[in-house]
């Protein structure tokens, strides 16, 4: 006489534990850890028998339960003479996590009901094609005031007096980042073609890469070799040579 093990799908170890607690009709604040641990492990074994993979989180919880069980088995040493100290229940943290999860699990069920109700309402099937105009700006400058404008302008002029304008070409990709990229590409490679380095680069990235290479040459990290006029430019790493020779 066989019986069918009903394999329920649990969202995770909390879900499984909550189900075991409900089935055993026990108080969540007073979980019989020994019983629940046994049933929890049984469930995992049943999965194993079915050759089902057990997610790591379930195993972590199993070890937590076993640790809890052994802690509860150890006799508590009553503090003699002193006023009775409230021992922290070792199960407390787990229960709080379970309750927290339980709330969201129930909210998810509430949301599923909302969805079932909402999906019975249908919106209109066709959009009226004609209203694809550009946005208008009711307040084209937002909260900007005249004084703001004057201030901004004043600052700009003051800045300009101080120093000659410098074009920030590389606002998106500072040269430091480019240098890091080139270094990264050179890891474990004796040489790299300049062209390969520029693949898929925007113009400002190309300029940035070029400057990065000059900087790396200056730092003595690389040398740049060109076989002939208009030939492939090859970037060679000194660091790699050092690595190989050492």
């Amino acid at each position, binding site marked *: 006489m066989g019986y069918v093990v009903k394999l329920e799908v649990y969202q995770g*170890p909390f879900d499984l534990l909550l189900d075991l607690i409900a089935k055993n009709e026990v108080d969540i604040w007073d979980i019989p850890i020994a019983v629940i641990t046994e049933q929890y492990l049984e469930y995992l074994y049943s999965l194993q028998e079915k050759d089902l993979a057990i997610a790591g989180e379930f195993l972590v919880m199993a070890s937590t339960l076993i640790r809890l069980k052994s802690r509860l088995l150890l006799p508590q040493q009553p503090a003699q003479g002193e006023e009775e100290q409230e021992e922290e229940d070792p199960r407390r943290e787990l229960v709080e996590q379970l309750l927290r999860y339980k709330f969201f699990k129930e909210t*998810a069920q509430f*949301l599923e009901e909302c969805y079932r*109700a*909402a*999906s019975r309402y*249908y919106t209109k*099937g066709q959009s009226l094609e004609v209203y694809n105009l550009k946005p208008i700006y009711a307040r084209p400058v937002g909260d900007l005031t005249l004084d703001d404008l004057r201030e901004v302008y004043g600052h700009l002029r003051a800045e300009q007096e101080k120093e000659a304008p410098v074009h920030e070409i590389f606002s998106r990709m500072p040269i430091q980042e480019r240098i890091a990229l080139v270094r990264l590409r050179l890891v474990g490679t004796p040489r790299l073609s300049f062209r390969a380095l520029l693949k898929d680069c925007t113009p400002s990235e190309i300029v940035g890469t070029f400057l990065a290479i000059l900087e790396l040459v200056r730092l003595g990290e690389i040398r740049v070799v060109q076989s002939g006029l208009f030939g492939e430019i090859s970037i060679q790493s000194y660091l790699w040579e050092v690595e190989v020779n050492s």
Partner: protein
Amino acid sequence: MTLAEARVIIEGLIFAAEKPLSAKEIGEIMELDPSTVDALVEEIRKKHADGALTIRLVAGGYQMVTKPELAPWIEQLGRPVVHAPLSTAATETLAIIAYEQPITRAEIEQIRGVRSDSALSNLLERGLICEVGRKEGPGRPILYGVTEKFLEHFGLAGLDELPLKSIGQ
């Protein structure tokens, strides 16, 4: 503009809009008080009492929809399901984000007790959540929040329609 004319215009606007229209948005277009808009929407609902349509409040806006009892008939049209149901994992993840936003992936996983990256990427892809910033601290992890589409998916007028969270229940 008489109130009756205003009522007709509001009906037209709600019908034609591609997304739920708030009383404020309608009010701005028509130069009307949002509370007047609300009252007129109520009138429109009444006028449609014996018809197929109604106006529901979803994601903070008004949207014209068919009455739910017509669903079996509408299904026969074979419209593709716009809002396919979510997996339990995704719904749980959404529930957490709705209450705890802004929240990181690690914090969500802490609550659910399981990895949630595929649920998250599913929700992002469907536009039900979005990145709302970065948390200060190591790695500056992404913070997630729910979108208006979330409310629409579940037919909620706003987040305050979610059940009260009684701490330590």
